[in-house]
């Protein structure tokens, strides 16, 4: 049983790392703009399919990673400029529907460009899986955790040690005050969307070798990432990371110890539970609402 538990934990952490990366994208955009970006999962899909195309053309994993990251970050920035900005005064629900539209449009575009077949991406490094404390971890799983850790560290540095990062944080706390202090809120919004595009692409690129890439992979991953973000209160990057790992482990334990039939429902039960707990005031933190 101990070995099994270790295995559930290990697989849960790898999957949780993916959710955490996606959840971070939600938190950054939500923090600054109070928008739930439904297209976050599509960024992940684009990152993964970008890796497919680039590695198939013979580029190395590193080059492919950087190029697809930049490309998807550009998509994020474009989306902000073309679609989100004109609606900056609209109600939050209108913007939510807009991003749902964006996610469907991106999915449709991917379907037309890449087709419906799942596509494979080579692992970052070849070799048999590692055994850690009785649990088997594939090498790409280690990559997922390593990349997630580096991204978290880089984000921490960015938010706490750079001017732009501080500006983002200021906007997240109080956009009006930030603008009074001379911070260009519209630029910060652009930055947030670009960043979330890059984060999504990163998640997509590292998981593609494990999950393969398909045009419709974004929806479920995006939703799980959102649940991770809500679990962490939607406003705090470290909490979203914790939420991601918690969700991954919870799903894995549910599949392993309870029943695999309802494994995917776990995330959504958690989602509703967190929402309700928030209303009832049972949570030590609050989900930041539209101010």
């Amino acid at each position, binding site marked *: 049983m101990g070995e099994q538990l270790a295995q559930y934990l290990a697989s849960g952490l790898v999957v949780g790392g993916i959710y955490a990366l996606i959840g971070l994208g939600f938190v950054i955009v939500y923090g600054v703009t109070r928008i*739930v970006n439904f297209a976050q999962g599509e960024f992940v899909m684009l990152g993964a399919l970008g890796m497919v195309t680039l590695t198939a053309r013979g580029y190395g994993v590193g080059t492919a990673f950087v190029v697809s990251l930049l490309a998807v970050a550009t998509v994020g920035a474009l989306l902000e400029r073309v*679609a989100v900005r*004109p*609606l900056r005064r*609209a109600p*939050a*629900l*209108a*913007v*939510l*529907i*807009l991003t*749902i*539209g*964006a*996610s*469907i*449009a*991106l*999915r*449709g*575009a991917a*379907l*037309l460009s890449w087709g419906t077949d799942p596509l494979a991406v080579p692992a970052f490094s070849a070799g048999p899986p590692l055994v850690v404390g009785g649990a088997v971890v594939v090498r790409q799983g280690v990559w997922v955790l390593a990349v997630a850790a580096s991204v978290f560290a880089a984000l921490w540095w960015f938010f706490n040690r750079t001017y732009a990062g501080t500006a983002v944080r200021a906007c997240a706390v109080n956009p009006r005050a930030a603008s009074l202090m001379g911070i260009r809120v519209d630029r910060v919004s652009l930055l947030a969307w670009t960043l979330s595009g890059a984060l999504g692409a990163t998640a997509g690129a590292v998981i593609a070798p494990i999950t393969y890439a398909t045009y419709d992979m974004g*929806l479920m991953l995006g*939703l799980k990432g*959102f*649940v991770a973000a*809500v679990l962490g209160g939607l406003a705090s990057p470290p909490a979203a990371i914790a939420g991601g790992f918690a969700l991954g482990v919870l799903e894995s334990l549910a599949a392993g110890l309870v029943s695999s*039939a*309802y494994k*995917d*429902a776990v995330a*959504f*039960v958690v*989602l*509703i539970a967190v*929402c*309700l707990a*928030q*209303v009832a005031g049972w949570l030590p933190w609050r*989900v930041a*609402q*539209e101010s």
Partner: protein
Amino acid sequence: MAARQRVMVLLGAAVVLAALPWVVHSRYVLAALVFIALNALAAVGLSLVMGFAGQVSLGQAAFFAVGAYVSGVLTATYGCNGWLAVVIAVAAGALTAAAIGLPIFRLSGLLLAMATLGFGIIVYYVLVNWAAVTGGPSGLTGVPPLTVGAFRFDSDARMLWLAGGALLGVLWLAGNLVDSRIGRALRAVHGSEAAAAAAGIDTARLKLGVFTLAGAITALAGALYAHYLTFINPSPFGFAYSVELVVMVVLGGVASLWGAVLGAAVIVALVETLRAALPLVSASHGAAEYEIALFGVILMLFMIFLPTGLVGLARRPA
């Protein structure tokens, strides 16, 4: 719309509806109109929630599924009378909505939208995994058509009378409601919740009431769907259908009942036209491939340029 005007319009529509099978003989066109009517019913329900309670439900397909499965299982598995099953299905839709709405309507805005999304997906998993009752992913066959004496609603034309009649009836009731004290209160809540509450309106109860009503209407559409197709399985009731309903409502114009009907008609017609037209352009792509991208783009364009929908376009002063 004044009450009398509304009655005239609906009566006119009823005459057209009654005469339609003598004018249109293609079962395909009639079936498309049946699906428009069923989608429009569900969309009218959602437009009440979106336009009058100011909330987005991303799980509306779940109520369609509840209606379809309650009525389908009762008749196909337990041999229950069809109309009784439809009534129970509608009640089940309302009860489900009330039960889920009671806790989640204390949430607001985005959290509420996401909670309804979660609810919709959970219902889908229940349909898939509770195979003993629902037949699981491979579905439930043998749902009987509805009958009145010897008259069976088993052809496209007859089903169109039923579904179209149900739609007109719901439009009449919902139109009356919107024009009443309750409807005014709903519109007030949408306009300013705080001011509405100060006027003595129990906003939480009212919103819950609308959500319940929408659940009932959507379940009615689902029940009729089950008796029309005589077969149900979970896959039409997934998240995609919830989003499609939102698209219909947004397209037509959020706070307009006729807008929801228009939205449903346009979407079905668009999909069918696309299917007819696409083979002329490209043999290698399925129509649905373009359909997905097209839906997304339509949704975005409408939110950016025409948030009041097609009805808003018509109303806008020239």
